[in-house]
C-alpha cells in the first residue's frame, strides 16, 4: 500500500514539474508587454527598462525558470508583479473560500446523487423517468446561468440571500452560510444530475448480476443486498464520476465566484491571467494541479478500501 502511495506521489511530482515548464514557457510569450502594462501608456523606454530589470525580465527564460523553481522548492512562490502581494499569502487567503464551496458542493452531490441514483435504479418507473429528464436539463444548463437565475429570484426579488458575498473577517458563520448557499447550489446542480445518472446505471448493472440473484435466493433482505453488496460494487464507478466532477468544478467555480463576487481563487486567477502576472499564474496552476493529483490519489485509495478486487489488481 505504501509503495502504491509513494509511486503515485512520485508520478504526481513529475506531472507538476512538466506542467510548470509548460506554463512558464507559455507565459514567456506575453512577458514582453509586462513592464508597459504595469507602468502605463506614457512610460518612457528608460522607465520600461528599469522595470524589466527589476522583475528579472531581462534574463533568459532558462535562468528565470530555475530561479522560480529554486524559490518554489523552498516554499517561496514569489510576489505578484502587479499587487506586490506574496503569492503564498494570496493563495492562503483565497483557497479557504473556494475549497469551502467545492467541498460543501461535493459532499452534497455525493449524498443527493447517490440517493436519487439508487432510487431511480431500484424504483424505475416514473422516478427513473424524472431522474433521466432532470439529468438532461441539469447537464445542458451551465452553472453560471443557474447562478444568475438563483440570484434574480432568491436574492433580488425575494431578498432571502445576499446577491453578492458578504464574507469578511468578523462576520459570523451565518454570513458564510448565507453567502455560500446560492453559489454552492449553482455549483452542485450539474453534479447532482450527472452523478445520479451514473450511479443509476452502475446500480442497475449490479442488480442484474448473478450474485444478486444468489444473495436474494438465500433469503438475504433486499436492504442488505442493496447497501452491503450492490452499492459497494457500484462505488468505483460513482467515485470516478465524482472525482471528475470535482476537477471540473475547479474551473466552473471561477465563473461562479465572479458572479457572486466571492474573494476566492476565481478573481485571483482571472486577474492574474489577463495581466500575465506570471508568479500568481504559476501559483494558481501549481495549486490546481496539486489538487487534481491529490483527488485522484484519494479516489484510488477509497476504491481499494471499498472494493477488494481493485486492491488486488
Amino acid at each position, binding site marked *: 500500500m505504501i509503495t502504491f502511495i509513494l509511486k503515485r506521489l512520485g508520478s504526481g511530482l513529475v506531472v507538476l514539474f512538466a506542467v510548470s515548464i509548460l506554463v512558464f514557457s507559455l507565459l514567456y510569450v506575453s512577458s*514582453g*508587454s509586462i513592464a508597459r502594462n504595469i507602468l502605463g501608456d*506614457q512610460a518612457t523606454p528608460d522607465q520600461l527598462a528599469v522595470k524589466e530589470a527589476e522583475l528579472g525580465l531581462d534574463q533568459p527564460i532558462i535562468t528565470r525558470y530555475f530561479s522560480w523553481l529554486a524559490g518554489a522548492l523552498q516554499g517561496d512562490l514569489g510576489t505578484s508583479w502587479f*499587487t506586490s502581494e506574496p503569492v503564498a499569502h494570496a493563495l492562503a487567503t483565497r483557497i479557504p473560500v473556494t475549497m469551502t464551496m467545492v467541498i460543501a458542493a461535493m459532499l452534497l452531490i455525493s449524498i443527493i446523487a447517490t440517493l*436519487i441514483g439508487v432510487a431511480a435504479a431500484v424504483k424505475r418507473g416514473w422516478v427513473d423517468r424524472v431522474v433521466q429528464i432532470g439529468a438532461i436539463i441539469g447537464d445542458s444548463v451551465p452553472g453560471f446561468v443557474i447562478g444568475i437565475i438563483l440570484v434574480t429570484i432568491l436574492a433580488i426579488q425575494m431578498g432571502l440571500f445576499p446577491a453578492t458575498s458578504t464574507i*469578511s473577517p468578523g462576520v459570523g458563520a451565518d454570513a458564510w*452560510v448565507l453567502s455560500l448557499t446560492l453559489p454552492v447550489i449553482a455549483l452542485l446542480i450539474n453534479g447532482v444530475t450527472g452523478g445520479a445518472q451514473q450511479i443509476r446505471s452502475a446500480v442497475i448493472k449490479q442488480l442484474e448480476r448473478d450474485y444478486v440473484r444468489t444473495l436474494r435466493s438465500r433469503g438475504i433482505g433486499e436492504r442488505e443486498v*442493496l447497501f452491503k453488496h450492490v452499492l459497494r460494487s457500484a462505488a468505483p464507478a460513482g467515485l470516478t464520476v465524482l472525482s471528475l466532477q470535482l476537477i471540473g468544478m475547479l474551473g466552473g467555480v471561477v465563473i461562479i465566484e465572479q458572479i457572486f463576487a466571492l474573494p476566492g481563487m476565481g*478573481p485571483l486567477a482571472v486577474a492574474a491571467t489577463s495581466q500575465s502576472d506570471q508568479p500568481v499564474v504559476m501559483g494558481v496552476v501549481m495549486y490546481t494541479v496539486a489538487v487534481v493529483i491529490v483527488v485522484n490519489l484519494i479516489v484510488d485509495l477509497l476504491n481499494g478500501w471499498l472494493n477488494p478486487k481493485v486492491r488486488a489488481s
Partner: protein
Amino acid sequence: MKLGPKAAAAAILVSAGLALTACGGAAGGTGTAAAKTTTLTLGAVSEIRSWDPAQAHVGHALQPYQAAYDSLLLRQPDGKLSPMLATEWKYNDANTKLTVDLRTDVTFSDGAKFDAEAAKANLDHFKKANGPQMAQLTAVSDVAVVDADTIELNLTTPDPSLEFYLSQAAGLMGSPKALGTEAIKTEPVGSGPYVMDKAATVKDSQSVFTARKDYWNKDLQKFQKVTFKTLIDLTARTNALVSGQIDATLLDPKTGKQAEGAKMKLVATEVDWQGLLLLDRDGTKNPALANVKVRQAINYAFDRKTIVEQVLLGQGTPTSQPFGKASGAWTEELENYYSYDPAKAKALLKEAGYETGVVLDIPSVPGWETQLAVIKQQLADVGITVNIGAAITNTFTSDVAAQKFTTMFFSLFQGEPWVATNQIISTKALYNPFKNTTPELQAKIDAVEKGGKDAGKLAQEVNKYVVEQAWFAPMFRVNQMYYHNAKVTVEPQVQQAVPSIYNYSPAK
C-alpha cells in the same frame, strides 16, 4: 423496508427548508445596516494594487485613494482646481518653476506632521517609485524646500498639465514615515478624511474606511463609514446595486436598463471617445493611408448618429474630434465636421486614385465586435475593404508601440489637452507609433506646451489640424453610466467615469 425515493425526497426537502428559514432571518438583519445614511458602500470596478500613493492610478481607480489621502490641489466636479493641502500656487513667467504654499495645520494618521519636507518626500518618492502614473512628474527635475510651508517644483520644460496632476495621483500625500515601507502597500497612511479599518478589509473583496477624528476639513467628510466593495463582474455589480448591497456603481447601457427598473438614478458623464486611429499617416506600411483624401473618405463613410442609437442604445454623442468637451480644446465647428456622406467618400477616393484597393487591417479587441462589424460594413459601402485580425490583449500596447497596427479601433480617455496631446498626437505619444508629425503641427504643439493658462485655447489649433488632416476617424463620445440609489446624492465629476469621493453626500 427499503429506503424509498419518498424518504430521500423528504430528507432533501427538510434540509432545504431548514436552510431557507435560517437564511431568511439573518438576511433581514443585514438589510437594516445599509439604511443609515452615515455609511456609503460603493461597488468598485477594480481592485487596488497597492495603497502606496505613488502607485495610484487615474480615472475610476483614483477614488479609493481619495478616501485615505488628501491631494495638494482639489479638483472640483467641473474640473476647476482649488486649494486643498496647497493654499496657493504660482508659476514664474517662463512656466518653469511652480511655487506652492502649504497648509500648516494638517497631520497624517500616524501622527506625522504635513509640511514642506513631507511634500518633497512624497514628490521625490513618486518620481522614483515606478508607479503607473509616474509620467505625471516627468517634467519636474527637482523639488526644493523654501521654508516650512513652501516648496518649489523646478521643471525641465513647461508642463501645462502639472497643476492638474497635483490634484491626481502625483498630488496624493502620504506620511513621510510610511513611504517606501512594505506596510503602506496594504494599509494607507495619509491625511485624508477616512482611515482604513484593516480588520474589516479583505483583498479582492472589500476595503473599509471609517471617518478620521479631527479631520481638518469637515466639509469633505460626509460619512462615518465608507466601504469599497470589489465587484469586477458587471452582473455582480448590477445585482449588488438593485438588491441594495451597495449605494452606487458603474454600469453600462444594457445593465442600466435593469437598474432603472429598480428605480436607481443615473449620473452620466462623457469620458472616453471611440473611433478609428488611422496610425500610418505617412504610409510606411499602408500607402493608401498617406493620402489625406483617403483618410477623409473614411471619416465621411460613417453614419455616426445611427451607430450611437443602435450600438450604444443612444448613450453617447456623435463627434468628429478627438478632444473632449471639458478640455478647452473642443470646438463646436469640429463636432460634426464629417457628416455622413458616402457619395462624397466615394468621390474623394476616386480623386485620390483609390476608387478600389484600399484595405484596412484592424485588430480585434474583445468587447468591440459589434463596433467593428458596423465599421466593416459601412466602409465596404464606399469601397474600402476591412480585414479584422486577432489581437492579443496582453501584448496589445506593446504591439501598438511596435508599429504592428496601421489602423486600430480604440476607446481613449479624453483628458486635459496636454495629456491628450501626449497620448495620441505628439511624437512621444504611444498612440502615434509611426511618430507622424509636420513642422506646422509641431509648432502648434509647442505653443500648447508653453501656453500656460492658455493651453486649452491653443490646443484648439492642434485639434483643428488633426481633424482636418483626418488623423483619426472619431465616432462618438461614450456616456459612462454611473448609478446610485435614493439614499445618497452624487455629483458627476468631469472626465471621470467614477466621481471623486467628495462628490457623494447623504440624501436629504
